[in-house]
Structure formats: C-alpha cells, structure tokens
C-alpha cells in the first residue's frame, strides 16, 4: 500500500509545545485510502496530541499537513470537518443530555424551509444509519446519558460516517467497551475500510489494534520511533519499540529511534 502515489493524509515534521514541554517533536505520519494505521505509544507519548492537531483541537507550532497531497490549513474542528476528517474521542464526546439523533447532527442540524429544526427527518436518518451499524439500537428518544458504553460508541461512530468522513480518527475506540462491543467495533472498522475510508487508530494497548491495523506508527517521548507494516513485525518487536524505542529490522526508524550503542 505504501507505494501508492498520494497519501490521503500526510503530516510532516509536526512539532507542538505546551509551555516549554515538547509534546510532539518533528513527527511525520501518513495514511492511505482504505488503510488502517495504528498509532501506538505509552500514555503521554504524544500520540493523542499529534492526532488532535489533525482534528483541529490543537494548532501546530511547526510542520505541514497535506490532504490528498495538497497543503491543508486546519485551525479548528470546523476546518478539519471540511477536509472530511472526523474524530471519535476517547472521552466519547457526545452531549449527554440530548438524544441520539441530536448528537448525530450536532453542529450540522437539518432544517425545514422555515429555518426550524427538522427533528423528524433527523430521526429518520438516525434510525437508518443506526440500523445499519447496530440493529439492536432502539432508544432514539432518550438522552444519550441513558445508553451503555457500546451504544454511545456506536452513536459517535454513526455521527462520523453520517457525514461521509474520508479520514476517521479513533482515539482509544474500545477503551470503554466490553469484549462483545469491542468485537462489534472491530467489524465496523473492517466495513469502513472496505468503503475506502482511511482510519487512524490510537491506542496504548497493542493487543487492541494489532490485528486490525495495516501499519503501525510508534511514538515515544513526543517523537516517532518508527513505523512498520504489521506483516513485517511481531507484536513483541512492536512492544520493544513502544517500551524501549528499539527499532526492529522490519521497521523504518524515525527520529525517536534509540541509536544503537
């Protein structure tokens, strides 16, 4: 896949600092259509920060973002959405007190010709999308607060695909879920991949994502240790990258790789 001409997303030499602390330093990652890329690293390795630059939550200090080979200006979440970038956050960023349909359309509500909310149409679409994702979902009238973790997660994912996301960012997508719900999300990722959507999976737990991902990028102390195709490396080798920053032969080393003594 890596020999395709233009990557969907290319983040080049990105740096960001918070009050003197370099959260991300000179990091470069890329993503191709229909590809699942896992971004791995310890808590505090900078992976969430890096991806929040892509989703518009943070603004980079240095570096370039290219979408389909073209330089992209991403200053806020609205800009990111213009480029078809949708994010599903670790904290399940849903408004707890409104119902599923309202959450799916939050920020992009359907309106009637009179400028009022078209709740009925939104609910109809919500029922259709949710029916495809999670046929058991029936609680359309209740605030999202009343739903289980998996149901809330499917609301968050439905929200992203409802708006034809081309690039999907999932931050610890299964952290809040049970085994069965995790499997559901896995199936969902495979389905989205078939539709040609590029997906970034962010996790600190390699077991969550190794089988789903085509490639892995590993970060440590704000720098990229290296990246590799999952078929070229073993889980243990990737673990070595995460813990020690040691780059195995099957991987391409980055600026954060431990220099062999």
């Amino acid at each position, binding site marked *: 896949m890596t020999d395709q001409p233009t990557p969907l997303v290319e983040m080049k030499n990105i740096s960001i600092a918070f009050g003197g602390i370099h959260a991300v330093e000179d990091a470069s990652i890329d993503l191709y259509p229909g590809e699942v890329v896992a971004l791995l690293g310890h808590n505090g390795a900078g992976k969430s920060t890096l991806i929040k630059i892509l989703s518009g939550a943070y603004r980079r200090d240095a570096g370039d973002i290219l979408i389909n080979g073209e330089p992209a200006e991403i200053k806020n979440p609205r800009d990111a959405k213009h480029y078809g970038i949708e994010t599903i956050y670790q904290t399940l*960023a849903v408004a707890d007190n409104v119902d599923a349909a309202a959450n799916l359309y*939050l920020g992009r509500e359907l309106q009637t010709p009179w400028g009022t909310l078209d709740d009925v149409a939104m*609910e109809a679409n919500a029922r259709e999308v949710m029916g495809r994702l999670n046929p058991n979902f029936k609680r359309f009238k209740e605030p999202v607060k009343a739903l289980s973790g998996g149901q809330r997660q499917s609301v968050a994912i439905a929200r992203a695909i409802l708006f034809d996301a081309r690039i999907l960012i999932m931050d610890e997508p299964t952290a809040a879920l049970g085994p069965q719900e995790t499997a559901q999300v896995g199936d969902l990722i495979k389905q989205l991949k078939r539709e040609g959507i590029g997906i970034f999976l962010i996790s600190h737990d390699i077991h969550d994502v190794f089988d789903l991902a085509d490639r892995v990028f590993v970060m440590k102390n704000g720098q990229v240790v290296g990246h590799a195709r999952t078929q070229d490396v073993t889980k243990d080798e990737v673990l070595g990258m995460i813990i020690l920053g040691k780059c195995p032969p099957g991987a391409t080393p980055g600026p954060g790789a431990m220099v062999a003594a």
Partner: protein
Amino acid sequence: MADTMQTTTTTTPRQAETNPVTRFFRATEVDTRLLGMIAALLIIWVGFHILTDGLFLTPRNLWNLTVQTSSVAVMATGMVLVIVTRNIDLSVGSILGFTGMIMGVMQAQILPELLGFGHPAIWALALLSGLAVGAMVGTLHGVIIAFLGVPSFIVTLGGLLVWRGATWFVTSGQTVAPMDPTFRLMGGGTSGSIGAGWSWVLGLAACAALIAAIVNARRQRKRFAFPRKPVWAEYVIGAIGCLTVLGVVLVANSYYWPTAIARRYAEANSIAWPEGGLLISHGIAVPVLIAIGVGIVMTFIATRLRFGRYVFAIGGNPEAAELAGIKTRWVTVRIFALMGMLAAIAAAISTARLNAATNAQGELDELYTIAAAVIGGTSLSGGMGTIAGAMLGALVMQSLQSGMVLLGIDTPLQRIVVGAVLVLAVWLDTVYRARAK
C-alpha cells in the same frame, strides 16, 4: 383520526408489567416532573385558600397573582438558557432597573420634547430604546464572559453593582413619573386588560393551535412510520390543555372592574347604572399575555431552533459541542444579549404597572428569577431545564408571597419561608432525579 387502528408504542412488552399509573404516564409522555410542580402549586393554592378562609382562590386574587408573576416569569425564561449553559446572571434585577429608568426618561422627558406631548409613537419608541439598551448591556456581559474568559458569576456580579449605579445616574436618583398612557397598558389594571370578548377569542384560538400542533406532530411521525402515542393519550392531552386554557379565560373574565371605575365608565359613556352594579370583565391582563407570548417564543427558540439545540448541547458537554464545530462563544454572547432584552421587557411591565421608574426597581429580582428557574427544574450543573417549568416556578414563588401577604405574615418571615422553600424544592428535585435514574 383514521389511524386509530395502527397505533403502536415502543414499549409494549414493558407496559404489560407495569401498573396503570406508570402506563398512563408512559403513554401520554407527560413530563412527570412538571406534573409534580403543578400538583405542588395546587397544594399551595388550596392550602392558602383554607388558611385565609377563602380569600386565595378568588378571580381577583388569581388575576392579580398572574399579573404580579409576569415580570419575573419573563426573565426566568431567559435565565433557563443562561443556567443550562452552566452560567449565571446576577445582574438581571439591575438591568431591569436601568432599562426601566431609560424607558421612563425617554417617555416622560426626552420624547415629549422631541415629538410633542402625547405623541402616539412615544410608547413604542421608549420600549424599543429600552430593549436596545437591554440587548447592548447583555451583549457586553456576554462578550466579556465568552471572549475574555471572566466567569459569568463575576461579570454579572459586577453588572449588578454597575447597572444599579448607572440607574441612579440617569436622573440623579429622581423617580420618573407618570408614564405614557399607552405604555401603561403593559402593566395591566382595568384598562390594561383585553376584556371578556377578546379573552374568549384568544382562548379558543389557543385551543385550536394546540389541537393543530397535536395533529401535525402525529402526522409527521406517521409520515416516517415512527412509533406514535396511543390515540386516547392524544385526546387526553388535548382535552386537558383546552380545559386549562378555557379555565384561565373563565377566571380572568370573572374578575370585574371595581365599582368606582365601572361607575365612572358608565357615566362617561352614559350607560344607565343597573340594579346589581355594572359587571365589566377584566379579561386577561396585557402583562400576562406578554409573559405567555415570551414563554411561547422562548420555548420555540429553545426546542425548534439550532440556537436552542446548541444551548442544550453546550450545557450537556461543552467540549463535545466545541468539537462538533459549534461556535460556543457566540452562542454564549447571544444568550446574554437575549437575557438583557428579556430584562428590558420585564422592566417595561414593572414600570408600566408602577406608573413610575424608580431607583430601586427590580432589586432582588435576580434572586427571584434564579429561584424560579431552579424551582422550575433547571439544573445548576447545566444541560437541563424547561421554559414552562421556570414560568411555573415563578408562579409558585409569587403564590407563596401573595398567600403570605393575605395571611398578614410580616416581610421578614416571608423571606424566611421563601428561602426555605427554595432549598426544600431543590432537595426534593435531587431526590426525584436520583430515583428516576
């Protein structure tokens, strides 16, 4: 309705297990919280009625009660949106005083000089200037809160002092009176009421609108084949709604003009004075109509417009709202601007009622407004609240106060009771919410 047969409900299997009361509430989709408030209100009313030996539930007292409630009720509708977004506005009483004074000076001093005394446009221009000033003050608060990051508690605490002081400076502390005769209609009274005929017309129109809304909602849900309420539930809600509206009209129409005013009116229009006295109905008072109108518009804004959806989403999860691309800061500014305008509307009602603009107008009103919203089920932790609940809350507060006045309870004790009731109401609400989960 032809669709009687195909009625479906989502909760059919669950319904079988529950008792008839639960089933009734589920089928009608009535907000049980709101129902509890109405029950509490009725208990207060009946209690005072018994304690005062039948003075409370009279057309006269109920009519006055609604008029006295309207000013705080208008502000409470805006306070809901403020509190839903996890903010607070402590300055509404002072904005009321300031905008009231502006409107007073406009109609009593500035506009008569410019346009001539008694010019028919004076009342409207005075009102518009008050609304504009209220909106500007609110916008200023909103901008400081949203863009400069000063907590709303502090900004509006400052506003409480600033605008009260500004009120004094408008006339160096002098009371402005009298108000323009047309402007005074907004305050109620014998002339500030619409009379029996128009009250019935409005009541019937409201019933028609209610039925149309129910039918339309049902048709919409049918179009998309969503689960619908059982038909009997729709009938029950429609019937209760219409009966309430017509009951209010009946009560308002049963309060007649005071004999002295009716006699003067009879003499002026050369009507022969009948044996049992001339009975002229007040009908619904203009300030009450204003409050109801504001309530309807605010409910529409809160539930049918994007702006309202954003207000609640921000209250539920500010971060999620921001990440969803909502311009949360502008929403905050607009909420406070709206609050400022509502305070100006309340100021118009209260200056018109008093027939004067004074320095002390609206003092402590911010606290009654917040209390009304909170008693009405607005959660201080954000995200929850209804306009109707807040207006009912205002009615509860005013009922307590006027009941205690009828009982001859001293002002200090009145305050103690109102304060205690506020705490009690919020505690009961906490218990209810904990159990409802």
